[in-house]
């Protein structure tokens, strides 16, 4: 579904990604692991288009989307749950969700999406008319995922969705991600929670200093003591 070849990018003069190759299969969960600062978020941002690629090629459902601006990618069914949430703080929860369904394609499915989202996160329904900026950290994270779902995506890029969530919710989030997969979505995940994410994922990549240090099925990761010790600190 998503094919990334030799992706390079960075900030200003500073190169962060030094040629990333990765593949995301349809209806799968793929996780990118790696130490802090390895370039995981940068990879997602570059794929989504928040950052402009310096080099390489990004292919999505057979199309070359390397230099497509982000909003075009959303139209093609890709979206990002960014690190740091990036909600609309002075808009209500409901309006945040409404904005998620901004594009025509998503608007048509507004009611269905809303139902799905509220069933996944009943808490959001309770807080429907509260301003997003005043939600607690965890509530905000739920809203961020929920809003992404409102775009009725096929591929969701998630940057550390479990960060800052209470243990009970972390579990729920990972369960949610699994459920999303069951709903037919494809997920590219960046996580620090190594155990939980390996638990739900099908494929895993390990990023180290801007390069892919390892790529394969989850089982391969689990089997490789070396990988675990060298890159995952476990």
């Amino acid at each position, binding site marked *: 579904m998503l094919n990334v070849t030799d992706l390079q990018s960075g900030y200003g003069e500073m190169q962060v990604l030094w040629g990333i190759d990765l593949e995301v299969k349809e209806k799968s969960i793929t996780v990118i692991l790696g130490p802090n600062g390895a370039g995981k978020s940068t990879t997602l941002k570059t794929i989504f288009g928040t950052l402009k690629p310096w080099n390489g090629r990004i292919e999505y459902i057979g199309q070359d989307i390397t230099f497509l601006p982000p909003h075009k990618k959303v139209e093609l069914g890709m979206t990002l*749950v960014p690190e740091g949430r*990036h909600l609309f703080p002075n808009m209500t929860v409901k309006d945040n969700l409404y904005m998620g369904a901004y594009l025509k394609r998503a608007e048509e499915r507004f009611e269905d999406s809303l139902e799905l989202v509220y069933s996944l996160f009943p808490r959001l329904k309770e807080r429907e008319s509260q301003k997003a900026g005043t939600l607690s950290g965890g509530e905000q994270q739920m809203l961020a995922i929920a809003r992404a779902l409102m775009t009725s995506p096929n591929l969701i890029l998630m940057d550390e969705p479990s960060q800052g969530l209470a243990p009970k919710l972390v579990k729920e989030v990972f369960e949610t991600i699994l459920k999303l997969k069951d709903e037919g979505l494809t997920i590219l995940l960046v996580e620090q929670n190594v155990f939980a994410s390996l638990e739900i994922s099908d494929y895993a990549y390990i990023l180290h200093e801007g390069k892919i240090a390892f790529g394969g099925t989850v089982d391969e990761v689990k089997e490789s003591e070396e990988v675990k010790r060298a890159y995952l600190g476990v």
Partner: protein
Amino acid sequence: MAFVEQLISNLLYGAILGSVYGLATMGLSLIFGVLRIVNVGHGAFIMVGAFIAYWMFILYGIPPLISLFLAIAVGMAIGLAIYMLVVKRLVDAPELASLLAMFAIGIFIEEFAKQIWGADYVGYSWEIGGVSMLFTEVPFTKLLAFASSIVIAAVVYVWFRKTKIGKAVRAVVEDREGATTCGIDVNRIYALSFSLGIGLTVLSGVLVTLFTPVGINVYMGGEYTLKAFVIAVLGGLASPWGAFYAGFIFGLIENGSYTLLGLIPGVEPFGLTRFLSSVVLMLVLLVKPTGLLGGE
């Protein structure tokens, strides 16, 4: 008797003037609200609108009401051009960098206008009669200015509040990166808001001449820039319709207080009305630091 009559007459004119002030500030608020740009060149665009009204009337006899449409079109085109050439590149620069750019653009427009139109003070005379109301005479042109301002402000309100694109504008204001993940083309929203802001401003220039059809000059904008700033803050700064209400109030204070201040011996009441507006501004900000409609 004379006192009350004068007060009422002044308030009437104040209300009309205020509606024009209000509209003349909406564009400023819109641009500030969305792009955080303090358009110090604001008045130059009002001037462009005033000249559009003037030339259309003088050359082709087109009444200013029709020029409104031309003005918003021209304004939006100018706005778009400025956005593409300059503002787009400064979106991520420090806030005041764009202030400098708008300052330069304001100067450029004035000086360019001077090259083609000269620095003469001109005016036009569109006479369609008037009515006696509330102890004074009001020309229909002023009433038209009043009505148009209200209608246009209402249209902008509805656009902003009720349409999807209006909401998208708000979303972009709140969080740009978040907006992109919803599929919103941020660049387009910026371009639209900026050009609409300039369009409204140019359009308000036409209404300004409906109220005051004389004294049209390439440097006429400065006065309006100042007032628009004050009104914008009074209204909550980032809120275009807040600006509209505030303009209204501002007009009422400016004209309404005249009669009262005239009771103080040994002063120039007209000068003091301006002083009073500043005092009111300070008081409002003291009580409500985000302006009348701010922070909603």
